[in-house]
């Protein structure tokens, strides 16, 4: 199986030859890959070097924590990559974004209101939980549309707070 794996804007061409061999670009490595205790962490021996990583699903692929460093990695098989590139022109990156509460808590601040234009990284709401004030930020530029909560509201996990279009 062949994959195109992207990490910090660099593509790696990987081929899984068999259970014990992996090609990266031109080079073939001997690998021994094991899931530890059916959990989110893995042990990898590559030509004898021992690595351990935690791997979490992320929005756009995987978050790999390897030796205390986070790598955001996107893995596509070759066909996926072709399809995505072919259709990229028609993709609309400006759908509605719905901000949800990542955990239960108290809304202590709402510095935006409907109609306000926000930049990526702007604070949309401050949620108090676990005795901390947590800033919820905008993932992209857009306009705030429906604000569904007020300061002082107790919200449940995943409750919709407001939208950005």
């Amino acid at each position, binding site marked *: *199986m062949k*994959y195109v*794996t992207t*990490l*910090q804007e*660099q593509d*790696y061409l*990987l081929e*899984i030859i068999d259970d014990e061999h*992996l090609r*990266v670009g031109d080079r073939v*490595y001997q*690998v021994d*890959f094991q*899931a530890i*205790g059916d*959990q*989110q*962490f*893995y042990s*990898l021996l*590559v030509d004898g070097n021992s*690595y351990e*990583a*935690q*791997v979490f699903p992320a929005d756009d*692929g*995987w*978050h*790999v*924590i*390897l*030796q*205390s*460093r*986070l*790598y955001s*990695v996107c*893995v596509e*098989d070759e066909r996926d990559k072709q399809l995505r590139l072919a259709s990229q022109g028609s993709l609309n990156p400006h759908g509605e974004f719905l901000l949800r509460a*990542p*955990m*239960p*808590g108290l809304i202590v601040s709402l510095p935006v209101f409907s109609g306000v234009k926000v930049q990526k990284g702007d604070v949309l709401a401050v949620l108090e*939980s*676990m*005795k*901390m004030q*947590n*800033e919820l*930020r905008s993932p992209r530029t857009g306009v705030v549309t429906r604000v569904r909560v007020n300061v002082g509201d107790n919200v449940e*996990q995943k409750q919709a707070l407001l939208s950005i279009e």
Partner: protein
Amino acid sequence: MFRKVLVANRGEIAVRIIRACRELGIRTVAVFSDADRQSLHVRYADEAYCLGAAPSRESYLRADKIIEIAKVCHCQAIHPGYGFLAERADFALACQDAGLNFIGPRPSAIAAMGDKAVARATVSRAGVAVVPGTEGEGALSDEDLLALAPKIGFPLLVKATAGGGGKGMRQVNSLEEMPSLLQSARREAESSFGDGNVYLEKLVDGARHIEFQILADDQGNVIHLGERECSLQRRHQKLLEESPSAFVGEDDALRQAMGAVAVRAAQAVEYINAGTIEFLVDHKKQYYFLEMNTRLQVEHPVTEWVTGVDIVKEQIHIAQGKPLHYHQRDVSLKGWAIECRINAEDPYQHFMPSIGKITHMTLPSGPGVRVDTGVYPGCEISPFYDSLISKLIVWGKTREEAILRMRQALDEYKIVGVRTNISFHQSLLHSPEFMRGQFDTHFVEEKFNLDKANDGKDYHPEIAAMIATLVTNRQAQQAAQFVQQKPRNTSHWKWLNRREWQRR
């Protein structure tokens, strides 16, 4: 002798206190909220009683219920831990009134140190240098403050007298911007503490936060257990503590001088039991009293390890009216201890708290490693309390050995189910500034960048790419096996049903 003690807290500190009691042959009573029935402190105590619903004000802050339980169970004493009721003079007083021993200072000492402006005035009168500012007791009006400000000089800080955790605090750079900032600080203080009083303090630039552990018995003996370096903070929350401090280092004259001042500050309020004097120290080694914490601190283990004193056992001992086990001359700092606070929060998502069930946990262990924890594999991290789930403490003969040991321990520490700041600590321990011991209280927020912290060293993008690809491939294979089974599953339901039964 205490035969039974109620522990009015939860999490790792409740477990820590229960362990100390059990090692002293004292029975323990735990209290818990609905969210904590399966917590370690409930499981490890001899007795356990439910206080009420999960929110603190309905459970761990219910002083009335806690005192009632202590009386019904025939406890002799209550240990408040830290947070919750630990620094509430009214609770200490209520314990006293109910005939219960409050394991901590007298209510008057809690009250005196609880109002930050009063505390500054009190220790100042006792000859302890405080950060220059408004030392007068009582409430100052905006007019008073605006008149005093230029004498202190800018930049300065407006701080809430009832303060804590950075609430009601504002940095003021000029007289012009002061009126509006005073107003917002008072408003925040009022809403956070029900007390809009504020005071002014000079902003000490590039300062370190160094604190001294104090022990005092009711027979007039007061000693200090050396210093803790607590400058590594984020949003006024300590993250990593050390004892000794690399800044004080070999300068034992400074250590003894600061220790003596700390003892004097404690004596100024006739302090009893364990407490901590916090100092700001500038780069010229000038030190100023900041505040006193009238309770056990989260970071007490680093002091325990370098001094050999079990602070919690000593607290219990003192509370029984006995003299300290130690004289000042018995106390010396041996080796180096570091503590990392392991929080359930995601360092890659603005340190957002993380909740959920811990599905897997591997603790670090081996020589020179201590873990104080209130969680275990299978338990739930709820959103109701603070995000500190564990403290990892290591000891080494030297700071270098302690750092290398902490790195190894952090590598070994595996928690699955909630995100933690373990990798943040690992990066911090690799930063050149930390390794050189050169940092101030603003270092983490202003100068430390998680992404760039360890560029170069241990950068293995190709390995990360391999692992992500192998995980993807593994999932694809599992999905393929599943799809292959599908026709059989739907067309032979009897077979499936048999399989289903067997699986149970």
